């Protein structure tokens, strides 16, 4: 992972994390939004402007790739680089969670 990607995506915004997580399966923009709503039980809504902008940026940075187009909708999927970035973020979150858990137990 080069330093530029690290600077931008570590740590990630909440929306970016959920988008990247959802794209471990091939999805299109609106489908990602629905998936994120399900995962967060309706707590996180990603607007279409934000969704499109994030997808474009992630595609440009090589974290996701365009797979196919169906009825004008573009489908995306995570790339190996994207998976690397996601795993790094998951590790950070796990660490954070452990610290919170320990603190709660006190």
């Amino acid at each position, binding site marked *: 992972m080069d330093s530029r990607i690290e600077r931008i995506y570590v740590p990630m915004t909440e929306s970016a994390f959920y988008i990247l997580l959802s794209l471990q399966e091939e999805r299109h923009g609106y489908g990602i939004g629905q998936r994120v709503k399900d995962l967060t039980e309706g707590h996180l*809504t990603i607007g279409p402007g934000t969704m499109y902008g*994030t997808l474009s940026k992630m595609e440009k940075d090589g974290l996701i790739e365009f797979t196919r187009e169906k009825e004008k909708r573009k489908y995306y999927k995570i790339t190996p680089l994207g998976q690397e970035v996601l795993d790094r973020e998951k590790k950070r979150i796990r660490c954070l969670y452990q610290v919170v858990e320990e603190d709660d137990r006190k």
Partner: protein
Amino acid sequence: MTKTCFRFFTITDYEKEEQWLHAMFLKGWKLVSVRFQCIYTFTQTEPADMAVRLEYSDIPLKTRPDYEVMMKDYGWECLSSGAGWNYFARPTDAQPVNNELFTDDVSRLSMIRKIFQKRYLVLFLVLIFLILPAVVTTGFEKGMNALFIGWIVLAGIYIFALAYCGIGFQKLLKKYDLKMDMTPSVRGLMVCALAAVVSILFLIAAYLVGGAFRDFWLAALPWVLCGIGLLALMIYTTTGNIDA
């Protein structure tokens, strides 16, 4: 039945524009087209509570069919698209977050920065390379002349507009708690523009005082100031951030 209105909204007053279009919907008027950014055409429709949102994007909507279909999926209809601005509307949802196009700081700042770079900074160049030279060359003529007055008035209106939008940007950034980082070249450009404004004010003062001020050095002053500004800009971009 259609009707056409003339309204002018600045580049930083798009939220006011959204509210106005929403109010029009409540009265039963749906936006059909926007021409020259001030001529609005509406068609009569059932009064409805519609959320209207503007998006500034340098890429035309027509070249992004995937974006258009994504907006439709989210419930947004495109009312008008042109000159970089896209107008979207959807039935107002009970949850406020569903009535927004942008839901995080990064994307919100991205749009504001786009407007700043593509619509605002350009105006500085017009001030420095068109208005200022015009003020200088017409002012160089001896005696009160209408052309000089005309350019001064235009410069005044122009500088007011720049200041108004500058404050508008500040208000938007503050509202959403955002920070826009300026590259050195942008800062340099603003220094030059400030030099241009100072020169124009100096010229007005000199003209009002009259007399021997109308000479070579007076005419040269604005260019000297701009030269200093450009020099500062060059130093910034070469020794400061390479990423101009």
